[in-house]
């Protein structure tokens, strides 16, 4: 593909991404509207006095029609203003900034372990295809993949935190300063790693098995290229394209708030922020998060497509 073709592909994809993000925001807005109750009811708390609720509603401009509120918010967004929280009055950007730290830290740590582990296991299994090592790796990854995150999390907490007391069970009390307490990160990262490692290594294994059996791999062997170099420099690039797409989905999943893990280990990340905002019907926060998640998803998938294009130059771009 020529450079101009690539550029127009990126432009088209970004445009499409903007449209998708707008659609996500509209959908989220419509769904939060459809939920019973609103921020006023949530704020009124244990004494749901109708007069009080109406007063709060008026003070927060919740009595205005939905489309006006949406238009106001969208106009603010165009100026880079995400609005303020209904529940606390703090700016939404601050919520996002606070929650992003722990989420980013978890995602980065998980990714740093996921890439070598996933690719390493996949290549290892493919190298010993059909033999003992392959069968061990394949059955172990399948078994781990079958366990849901919350079940594995509860199991790990029970064994390593409660029974053996090697690690703290949750991150309660550490606030957003998780780096200062690395021990609290071990279990969450393990749980986050568990399933992505399995799906990634299985994809890499499948691609590598094909690539190693190909005539071009046989040709490199014929001409005396060392085995490790054949595996990593010649065969692996052909197995990478599907893995890159899978990796993008994983990163997306990690960054968009891993609600189950954050809730289980009480980590104040984006997932926790989202959960609280929904409980409080804090629409501006929910919408702000929807925008952030939408943009992240679009950008990550575009990146993965570009990597896949580089790795399968023959296929061109499937837009």
């Amino acid at each position, binding site marked *: 593909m020529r450079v101009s073709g690539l550029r127009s592909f990126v432009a088209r994809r970004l445009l499409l991404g903007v449209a998708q993000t707008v659609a996500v925001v509209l959908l989220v807005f419509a769904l939060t509207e459809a939920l019973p109750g609103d921020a006023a009811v949530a704020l009124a708390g244990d004494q749901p006095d109708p007069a009080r609720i109406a007063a709060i509603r008026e003070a927060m401009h919740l009595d205005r029609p939905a489309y006006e509120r949406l238009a106001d918010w969208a106009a603010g967004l165009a100026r880079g203003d995400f609005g303020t929280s209904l529940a606390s009055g703090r700016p939404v950007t601050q919520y996002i900034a606070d929650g992003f730290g722990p989420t980013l830290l978890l995602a980065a740590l998980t990714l740093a372990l996921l890439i070598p582990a996933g690719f390493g296991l996949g290549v290892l299994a493919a190298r010993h295809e059909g033999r003992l090592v392959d069968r061990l790796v394949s059955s172990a990854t399948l078994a781990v993949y079958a366990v849901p995150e919350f079940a594995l999390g509860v199991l790990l907490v029970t064994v390593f935190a409660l029974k053996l007391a090697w690690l703290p069970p949750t991150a309660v009390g550490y606030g957003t300063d998780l780096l200062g307490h690395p021990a609290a990160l071990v279990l969450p990262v393990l749980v986050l790693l568990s399933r992505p490692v399995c799906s990634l290594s299985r994809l890499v294994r499948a691609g590598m098995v094909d690539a190693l059996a*190909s*005539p*071009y791999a*046989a*040709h*490199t062997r*014929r*001409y*005396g*290229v060392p085995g490790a*170099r054949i595996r990593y*420099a*010649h065969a692996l*690039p*052909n197995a*990478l394209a599907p893995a890159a797409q899978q990796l993008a989905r994983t990163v997306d999943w990690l960054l968009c708030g891993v609600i189950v893990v954050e809730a289980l280990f009480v980590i104040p990340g984006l997932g926790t922020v989202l959960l609280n905002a929904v409980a409080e019907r804090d629409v501006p926060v929910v919408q702000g998060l929807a925008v952030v998640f939408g943009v992240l998803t679009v950008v990550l998938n575009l990146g993965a497509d570009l990597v896949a294009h580089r*790795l*399968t*130059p*023959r296929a061109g771009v499937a837009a």
Partner: protein
Amino acid sequence: MSDRTETVAEIRDLRVEIDGRAIVDGVHLRVRPGMVTALVGASGSGKTTTGLALLGEYPAGARVTGEVRLAEGGLVGYVPQHPAAVLNPARRVSALLDDIARPQVRALPPAERRAAARELVLRALSDAQLPDAKALLRRYPHQLSGGQQQRVVLAQALLLGARVVVADEPTTGQDALTKDRIVDQLAAVTARGIAVVLLSHDLDVVRALADEVLVMRAGRVVESGPVARLWRYPRHEWTRRLLDAQRAAPPDETRTGAGQPVLEVRHLTAVHGRTTVLRAPHLTLHPGECLAVMGRSGSGKTTLARCLAGLHRDHDGELLLDGTTLPRSLRHRSRAQLAAVQYVFQDTRAAFDEHRPVLDQVARTAVRLRGADERAAREEALTTLDSLGLAEEPAHRLPGELSGGELQRAALARALLAHPRVLICDEITSGLDTVTRRGILDLLAGLLRDRDDLSLVLITHDRETARIAHRVAVVDVGELAGEGRARQVLTP
């Protein structure tokens, strides 16, 4: 002359057996530096197995006896039939070349290694007659032409320092000019003192290149000797047949049709994107006629065929079948129209579903396009296959278990089951050895004789194949350059 007597590789009494069946049996072969040793024979005769034995490679599960000996430091290079298959699609051309060069510069200080390796790579590419090597190294294999891919693979062998190069069917499916180039190139390789083992059923190339010829049949060498002697005085019956099979009989001239054409092309201009790839102002095909469309690869002859079949719809011409307009795209053609124009592809393996028996796939045409019921379709499929020389037993097998020639017969049967008016054959003989090719051509001539309403369009670059046609249309650089009676066009 003394070095001509030394041997760089030798095979003694090689026997390769799979499941108790010998695919190579008692083969002796001596390879001398700077000489071309050709193995000729039909496909399945054991040529490739013998050639790969020099590389120390055998089919999976094979039992091997005998001896393969290489001279001291005797590295062997390999140029396969489809060079694209051994080039890594995800890596640039330079990737493997650099890896081959790297161990050769290990003695140098680290700072100089990279430059020295690049120097070796560039020299190998220029030895393989690839100009502009620097730019070429940065390309991906799919960005090279077929000829360039072949030369890159040859450059890998030269860079390795191979003393023997095994070339497997290097000219199969190439047009005459490209063939000449390949012959020159292999001749240049031997001039450097490298031995070439040529596996080919292209007898013209063997005659032009080989010093010594081994004729193989069913895994055995039936005759061997210097090329000139073998051509003039073939001793074995099979050698004689192989040499005879090159010439095909001209068609029966009395039956060229007149009256209304079955297919007519008017003002056809086909485009790929914005590039015009073919202009054909007027072309007709009469009932019972065979029209050969000749031209070099890339001339646009396949595009013409694809336009007729509705596979290429980016054109603004008019196609008439029996005087009525034929929609441009396959999707807008009725079943009867689909059945009327059938297409047989060059790559038969790709045209069959590898997971279903051949018979099912052949019979399916009659069910889909003519509404025949399953049983009748299967019976007709079996009769048609039988008349095309494919027995019932192989018809029940999967496509992967049939030879190229057998599969081509099945592909013809599949098209015939639609009861077509026009049968388009796109280079259907180009991957076949001479004996098989002759069989298929006889078959096509027989079809023309026996089926009054069938017309053939033969897309080919091969003059011998075009000989069975009544008329020949020549396509050159996207233009219909001329047409005439086969006798006049083909007489040199």
